[in-house]
């Protein structure tokens, strides 16, 4: 019987309650109004220290995320006839635990895999799922970061021996030259307060904004220069830029001498690149490429803004490498107006070298923004269907919807049939929950204590209390994992001594005693590093956690002490009250108090422009390793290889254009999208449409080598010939409000993506570069 913890229930009626939007990684601070336990209004929160009142339009969809017809209220078990039957929590936990334990013992711990971890703003689940997997000694974790961004972490690991808790971000605000790659911030709202920022940049005479985009995007049209590159050719473009800078000797030799150990070898590898050929192959006049390179190199400060458009296309790892190379050779790293490393709130960490490899591909897990390596969704199906004895037999899906959001829906459908056990932990009857053996209901983000671990410009963490009460029978994820690990017999109860010490842990003397004993006792039981860490995390939640409104908050208590101990200078600089505290554990308590008492977020540190490079480059000599033999060999090959087209599939699909109606598939109820639509069109160039005999609104079938979808077209002059866009965030199957029948809303792009079409280093898919063809449908053929 757990100790009674203080129960905090959100009021059923309140105005202006601070929380944050969870629909994208910017987590803009919002105020919500609550009436009869329902969120009725959403506005920007001017008191949020990070976003200061800014939101985009999509935050208005939050009520539809919380309240809709597919919310789950009971644990469910799949019946032999394919339907679901409700069961109690105790029975669900007992059955799942028994099956997991059998798989773990008869096969291997790594036969149990976890996919998900938290979505765009609800990461507290990770404080249950990671200790769970650590305790089982299974490193098989899948996360959406590994289908978008882990190539950056890989590049930073190699070049800088970086830790997992950083992100290399442009300081556009102070820059004189902003190169924008693969993103349309004015619509996607990528970056802090994006539309306001670009407004300011456009009006600054000494700031030049250059946008590289196949489409004449909203951001491109307001920039100083728009380079209409051919789709998917960014690797050749960046290689051309680097080559020109090297050939004309425009690199920053002083910076290179100080910060880069092996520049001459890097230069020798690439200086012979034919930049004119690179220009031809990316569909850009040579003068434009030349100007892009020389202007970037000559600007007193320059930065690179980048996102999905160059992350889900061919050569994504090489592109990330070239971005870092451009910044390093021009000295635009670690200072104002350039790119700097942002860091998460938390203690200083060490570089985790050893990572697990996928069985079939050998692709290595990459730690990014969490202290555990993650594998790419692209390899999940083959790790299930593998013949290897240690293959995945049980999968827990938590905070993810693979049948909608992971590439190659058919491959996932087929692979899931081969699993011995599929458990889906979800607030809603998602597409993936539909095929699960067990579905366990959780509250949504606004119904429980939550946190987003994404780094901000400054250190401005925000622990968010619940703002509405969720379904009575839904359990927050950490509690589900706690019950599972207990039921599996893997986690003994915490020693009584720790319960006693926990009572005094919120004290500058009691804290180190408690942490020390906790560490010692957890380590004494052995089992390996991961099980010890798992045990530590569970005992912390069971002992100190029992005295907090929610048990996983105890991990934030620990992180607060870790921050105060290892980053005291940052803390002192931002929080005057911390300065006079002699005992570091008093400072840690202060940090935790500030977190718990500031639901709108609190500033605990400033962005570092002083020793940013030194702090985050962990190679022993403090220098970056720019020369990477395998990537340079690839680039030299790329420099000799013209981009290939697929003659049977002559169009290139950008799978996932961001629009004003793109929120997140956690918003399942489409009713928030108003107006005449169609909201999910197939967007086409006017000449291409004319050649196909298509008018606005006509239906078309789009075939890739992997699948087919149908939809109405929209003609847009800003779209390049040969390029096609389909908006992101559609394909959800939601009950018709009249008939109750499940209806699909818009196109599921992942039906078209072939998961074998991926980056060789990271497994990242090419969702934004799918070869396809278009077939007009006669009026009677349209759905």
């Amino acid at each position, binding site marked *: 019987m757990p100790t009674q913890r203080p129960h905090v229930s959100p009021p059923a009626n309140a105005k202006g309650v601070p929380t944050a939007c969870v629909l994208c990684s910017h987590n803009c601070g919002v105020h919500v109004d609550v009436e009869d336990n329902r969120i009725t209004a959403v506005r920007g929160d001017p008191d949020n220290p990070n976003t200061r009142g800014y*939101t*985009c*339009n*999509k935050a*208005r969809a939050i009520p539809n995320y919380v309240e809709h017809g597919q919310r789950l209220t009971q644990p469910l078990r799949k019946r032999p006839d394919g339907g679901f039957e409700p069961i109690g929590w105790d029975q669900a936990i007992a059955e799942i635990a028994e099956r997991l334990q059998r798989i773990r013992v008869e096969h291997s711990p790594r036969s149990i895999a976890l996919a998900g971890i938290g979505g765009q703003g609800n990461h507290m689940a990770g404080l249950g799922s990671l200790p769970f997997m650590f305790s089982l000694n299974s490193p098989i974790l899948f996360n959406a970061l590994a289908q978008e961004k882990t190539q950056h972490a890989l590049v930073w690991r190699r070049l800088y021996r970086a830790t997992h808790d950083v992100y290399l971000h442009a300081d556009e605000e102070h820059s004189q030259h902003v190169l924008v790659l693969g993103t349309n911030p*004015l*619509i996607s709202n990528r970056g802090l307060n994006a*539309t306001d920022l*670009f*407004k300011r940049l*456009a009006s600054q005479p000494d700031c030049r904004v250059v946008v590289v985009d196949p489409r004449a995007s*909203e951001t491109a*049209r*307001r920039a100083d220069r728009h380079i209409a590159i051919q789709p998917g050719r960014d690797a050749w473009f960046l290689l051309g830029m680097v080559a020109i800078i090297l050939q004309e000797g425009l690199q920053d030799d002083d910076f290179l001498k100080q910060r880069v150990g092996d520049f001459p070898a890097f230069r020798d590898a690439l200086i012979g690149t034919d930049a004119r050929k690179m220009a031809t192959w990316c569909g850009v006049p040579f003068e434009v490429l030349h100007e892009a390179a020389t202007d970037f190199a000559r600007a007193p400060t320059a930065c690179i803004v980048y996102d999905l458009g160059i992350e889900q296309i061919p050569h994504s790892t090489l592109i990330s490498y070239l971005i870092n190379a451009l910044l390093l050779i021009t000295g635009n790293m670690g200072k104002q107006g350039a790119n700097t490393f942002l860091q998460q709130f938390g203690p200083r960490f060490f570089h985790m070298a050893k990572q697990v490899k996928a069985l079939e591909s050998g692709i290595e897990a990459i730690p990014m923004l969490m202290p555990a390596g993650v594998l790419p969704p692209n390899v999940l199906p083959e790790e299930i269907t593998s013949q290897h004895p240690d293959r995945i037999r049980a999968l827990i899906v938590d905070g993810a919807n693979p049948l909608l959001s992971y590439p190659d829906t058919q491959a996932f459908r087929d692979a899931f049939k081969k699993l011995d056990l599929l458990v889906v932990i979800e607030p809603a009857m998602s597409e993936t929950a539909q095929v699960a053996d067990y579905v366990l209901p959780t509250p949504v983000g606004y119904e429980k204590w939550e946190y987003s671990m994404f780094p901000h410009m400054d250190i401005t963490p925000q622990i968010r209390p619940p703002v509405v009460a969720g379904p009575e029978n839904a359990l927050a994820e950490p509690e589900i994992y706690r019950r599972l690990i207990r039921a599996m017999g893997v986690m003994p109860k915490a020693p009584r001594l720790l319960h006693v010490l926990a009572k005094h842990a919120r004290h500058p003397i009691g804290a180190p005693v408690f942490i020390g004993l906790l560490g010692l006792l957890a380590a004494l039981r052995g089992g390996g590093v991961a099980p010890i860490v798992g045990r530590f995390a569970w005992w912390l939640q069971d002992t100190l956690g029992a005295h907090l409104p929610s048990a996983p908050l105890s991990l934030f208590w620990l992180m607060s002490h870790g921050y105060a101990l290892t980053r005291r200078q940052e803390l002192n600089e931002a929080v005057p009250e911390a300065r006079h505290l002699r005992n570091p554990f008093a400072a840690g308590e202060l940090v935790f108090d500030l977190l718990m008492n500031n639901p709108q977020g609190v500033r605990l540190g400033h962005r570092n422009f002083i020793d940013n490079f030194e702090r985050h480059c962990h190679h022993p000599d403090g220098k970056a390793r720019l020369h990477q033999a395998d990537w340079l060999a690839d680039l030299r090959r790329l420099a000799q290889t013209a981009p290939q087209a697929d003659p049977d599939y002559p169009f290139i699909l950008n799978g996932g254009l961001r629009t*004003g*109606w793109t929120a997140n598939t956690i918003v399942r109820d489409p009713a928030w999208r*108003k*107006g*005449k639509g169609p909201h999910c069109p197939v967007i086409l160039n006017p000449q291409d449409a004319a050649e196909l005999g298509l008018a606005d609104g006509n239906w078309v079938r789009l075939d890739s080598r992997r699948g087919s979808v149908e939809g109405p077209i929209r003609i847009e002059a800003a779209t390049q010939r040969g390029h096609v866009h389909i908006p992101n965030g559609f394909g959800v199957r939601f009950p018709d409000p009249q008939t109750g029948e499940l209806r699909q809303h818009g196109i599921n792009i992942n039906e078209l993506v072939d998961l074998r079409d991926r980056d060789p280093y990271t497994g990242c898919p090419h969702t934004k570069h799918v070869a396809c063809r278009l077939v007009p449908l006669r009026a009677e053929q349209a759905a």
Partner: protein
Amino acid sequence: MTFVVTESCIQCKYTDCVAVCPVDCFHEGPNFLVINPETCVDCGICVAECPVEAIFADVDLPEGQQAFLAINAELAQNPAWPVIKATKPPLAEHERWKQVEDKRELLIRVPG
């Protein structure tokens, strides 16, 4: 950045745009609507809604319509132009006026 309601709206005032605006940035006059440039979040959703294509991004204003950038900013601040949050029927003569291009002298700034 902002979006701008231009000449086509005058004497028609369909208000389809109002239904989709997430930040209630439209202000209503007797025979015209304007967008408040301070509240507009540049989502662009309203553009497709207008039956007479009256709305443009400020950088996309067509030839001859640039004056409406200032007109929207000015009238949004006018106390006689309240925020409009819901669609209503268009003006009685909208069918006749939607073909007419040159009608800016008909813009009524003050009611009554």
